[in-house]
């Protein structure tokens, strides 16, 4: 427990009560609990395993699996599929969702309540139902399952989240800026590109990160609509019964680190954006 967990100033005012100290310890235990599986993943990605499957015993340190991270062609293809789907479905969700977010945040219109309910239902619907219902449509239409259907399905669950995040950003904006642009003779189109879009960019980036994370993580919905195509989580899920090759932990560690870097970059940019505003 680091000593700086309690603001230093408070120590002079009062003794830290026992309850508060216990809660502090508890919070650290919770963090340790949250970290446990990550530690297992990272540590065992460096474990020697002659069988080519992750074992339960520590047999010694090796970077062999990192040097051969892409040695399983199917797994690498699955990871590439995952990345393609995550990037394309997130971009599509932003393009479709931003106008709706603007409409919901700025206008009162007939059908707004219904739209709210649909977005809410879409977010609240269990993944297994979303997957099963999409599969029933694809079956009814006799659509072959593969990358296109995975893309459509991921867009289906990304869109609602993207709308909610961007809408929150639009709601927080000062409308005077748009009006000023209009007063200066800007058309709505120019106003959107020169004023509104730059202002809601942090929201769009946040929404993009969330959509990307949801998409690259999804296994339940994808398992229904993927057909013979495999994404990274699906490959791992399928290989689980026969033993998991260490490359799975290696690639997953890559995703983890990339996620950390992106999150760090995002918070840096939003901090800079916040400074620029004032």
């Amino acid at each position, binding site marked *: 427990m680091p000593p700086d967990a309690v603001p230093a100033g408070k120590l002079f005012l009062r003794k830290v009560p026992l309850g508060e100290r216990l809660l502090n310890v508890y919070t650290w235990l919770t963090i340790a609990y949250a970290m446990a*599986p990550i530690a297992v993943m990272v540590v065992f990605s460096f474990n020697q395993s002659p069988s080519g499957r992750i074992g339960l015993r520590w047999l010694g340190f090796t970077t062999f699996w990192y040097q051969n991270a892409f040695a399983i062609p199917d797994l690498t293809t699955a990871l590439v599929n995952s990345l393609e789907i995550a990037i394309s479905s997130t971009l599509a969700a932003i393009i479709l969702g931003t106008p709706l977010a603007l409409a919901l945040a700025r206008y009162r219109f007939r*059908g707004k309540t219904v739209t709210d309910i*649909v977005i809410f239902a879409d977010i609240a619907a269990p993944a297994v139902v979303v997957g099963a219902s999409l599969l029933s*449509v694809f079956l009814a239409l006799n659509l072959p399952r593969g990358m296109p259907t995975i893309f459509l399905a991921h867009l289906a669950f990304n869109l609602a989240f993207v709308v909610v995040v961007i809408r929150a950003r639009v709601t927080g904006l000062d409308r005077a800026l748009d009006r000023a642009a209009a007063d200066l003779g800007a058309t709505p*189109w120019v106003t959107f590109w020169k004023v509104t879009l730059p202002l809601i960019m942090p929201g769009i980036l946040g929404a993009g990160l969330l959509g990307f994370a949801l998409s690259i993580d999804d296994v339940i919905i994808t398992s229904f609509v993927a057909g013979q195509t495999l994404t990274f989580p699906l490959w791992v899920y399928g290989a689980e019964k026969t033993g998991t090759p260490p490359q799975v932990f290696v690639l997953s560690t890559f995703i983890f680190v990339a996620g950390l870097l992106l999150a760090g970059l995002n918070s840096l940019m939003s901090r800079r954006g916040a400074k620029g505003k004032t």
Partner: protein
Amino acid sequence: MAKPEVAAGRAHRGRIGPRLAPYLLSLPSWAYFLGLFLIPLGSMVIMATAIGDPLDGYTISDNFAEFLTAVSQYHDEFVRSFVYGGVSTVVTLLLAYPAAYWIAFHGGQHKSTFLFLIVLPFFVTFVIRVLAWQFILADQGFIFGPLKDLGLLPENAYVLSTKWAVIGGLIYNNLGYYVLPLYVSLEKIDRRMVLAANDLYATPSTAFLRVVLPLSAPGVFAGFLLVFVTNVGDFINAEILGGPSTSMIGNIIQDSFFVDQDYPMAAALSSLLMLLLMVSILIYAKAFGTETIQDYAA
């Protein structure tokens, strides 16, 4: 009713009237919600009435018997899903609340760091997290192995493939999802309310129960809903951590589609699951408003 709130919309007079603007803006998303959310839901219900078999194909009919068969045949799995989902959500709430509370009230300048550490697992793929628990909980794994070697546990002790492993997995996977909305609602509470309670001679526990807890209710309920729905519909934890006796309704739906290819049964089961969950959600939305829950969903 549709009296447009277009104070600023009136200012920029483009070719598109402000009256039409919101509809045009919503059109693309609405087409999508319709085509890939509402129509699929409807088609799933229709699929449930189909008769036929995997080889000859299915034809739509007006046969609703499948719903009754689904209930009578998979009654146990439905109950199990709701029990596992309910228990795991309650435990997650109990685990998450104290941590969220401490971070919001006593986290000081490191608040966001603590929060970040707790949601860190989100950066690891869901399936991998479950898989890692399979390694941790294995019969000769990092916990059971040493305890057995020391003689603290009998040689045949195990937790994998029991309901405890499945519920444990569900609890772990949603901890961060629950800490976030709890933190947001606790963070919003004006500290002066607590001070006022103290001034009025409330004991710390009274102040907590009568002031902090009620004010954090939106986070408690929003989180409960999202985590509960996720857990009831989950089948990954049951598949990787559980055994034959822990099948949840999601496992059955998956198997109906892909093992038995009994599409009507799969569709009937997921329609029923959606119906049951929507009923609970409607009760929730009525009590707390959909916008609050949406705020926390993000």
